[in-house]
């Protein structure tokens, strides 16, 4: 399962080359930072996209992560791995961005109350209520929309924990550091995220498997 991206896991050669680029940047060669940006942008983009769920926000997260990394580079000097470091900065900023987006969205949809009846609506219920017909289930676009809704229904911490663990193969300690919690809490956040996704998607995923078996899905 562990699919730690190469730039985060970092081979010794890349780490050494990163360390050299950091040193040269700190010595005043601003262009040396370009090497780091070009090397790690793709990895950071993938994380940012999975966390934010849209390309526009993901690109903003990538730019902001590198800007912040540059500004704080003096504090990084003693650390071991630039890839891991910028990855964490991006994850933290992505959480802030998601929170900001949620507030903007809430204000846009309903400027006075949180929801129609004044109670917080469980986004998971929306996923389950919108159960499509078997015909529609075979359409991958619909399934994709369901999955995106299920991911969007997770809390920021849950989505971060799931993305970092399941897709990026990060260690629990690393996730705990980004979530500013301890290992046990981080592990529980992964459990909660997977359990919620399963609850929301199992009927559709099951149907897809069935569709595959029956040869109805392209």
């Amino acid at each position, binding site marked *: 399962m562990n699919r730690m991206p190469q730039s985060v896991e970092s081979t010794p050669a890349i780490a050494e080359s990163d360390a050299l680029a950091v040193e040269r940047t700190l010595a005043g060669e601003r262009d040396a930072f370009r090497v780091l*940006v070009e090397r790690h942008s793709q990895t950071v983009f993938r994380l940012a996209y999975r966390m934010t769920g849209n390309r526009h926000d993901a690109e903003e997260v990538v730019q902001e992560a590198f800007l912040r990394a540059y500004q704080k580079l*003096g*504090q990084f000097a003693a650390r071991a791995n630039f890839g891991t470091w910028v990855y964490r900065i991006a994850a933290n900023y992505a959480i802030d961005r998601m929170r900001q987006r949620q507030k903007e969205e809430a204000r846009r949809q309903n400027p006075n109350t949180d929801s129609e009846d004044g109670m917080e609506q469980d986004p998971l219920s929306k996923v389950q209520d919108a159960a499509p017909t078997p015909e529609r289930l075979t359409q991958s676009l619909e399934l994709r929309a369901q999955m995106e809704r299920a991911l969007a229904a997770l809390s920021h911490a849950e989505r971060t924990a799931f993305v970092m663990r399941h897709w990026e193969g990060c260690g629990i300690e690393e996730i705990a550091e980004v979530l*500013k919690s301890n290992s046990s809490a981080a592990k529980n956040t992964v459990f909660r995220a997977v359990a919620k996704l399963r609850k929301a998607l199992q009927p559709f995923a099951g149907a897809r498997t069935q569709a595959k078996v029956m040869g109805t899905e392209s």
Partner: protein
Amino acid sequence: MKHLTEEELIAFREGMTAEKTGIPQHLAGCDECRAELERLDAVLAALDSLPVPDPGEDYGRRVWQQIAPRLPENPARWWQVWMLPRRLAAIGAVSALVIAAFFVGRISTMRSHPGDNAANQQQVRERVLVVAVGQHLGRSEMMLVELSNAEPADPKQKQVNISAEQHRAEDLLEENRLYRQTALQEGDAGLANVLDELERVLLDVAHSPEEVTPAQLEAIRHKIEAQGILFKVRVVSKELEQRQDAVKPSPTQNDSNKRERNKV
């Protein structure tokens, strides 16, 4: 047969189980749990099919082009970080104390014991710092106690706002670093150790989000309790108070006090 829980299956699927859990053995002999794991696999496999757009091979170059004009000429070096306004304020406050301590020490020595040695100056200097560090520890203790008792303003709220404590922790952190360095220079390893431990807790609080979930708050509380930092701060504060009360503590008293603190 006792079946695997959902948590155990998720932990197994996500590689978060210890090696000797016996889960693979159970799965090998239990059709029901294996079917459950397959259902979980189906959900996760479906999620894995979600595409991530390819930003293109030249994406790194484009990112660089977008951020390059916004980068300052040089990234901040460690010493430039010390020149931030907040740090300058803390440096100013501590420097003023050290200078005041130096002159008070000189004047009192000249008046009472014109020919006396530097030990008296050292004592007075230490006393001024003791007052300042004592007040700093008092403020830190108050902030930690408030944080430990923090609750949502409205019971319906799921998040607890700790922004006030967080900002205070940021201010205390700057002071703390300088007092710790001063304590080290003064050879007071015990005080420096306690300040070092306090610094780590302040750092955690300062870097926490402004709004935390009850679980996150509990984790912060747990960290505070696990390190026994409140107890240590109280013990050192009390000891500093006693040192403050003593009119002219002898060097031997000071040494024994430092030894006591080292035990703490």
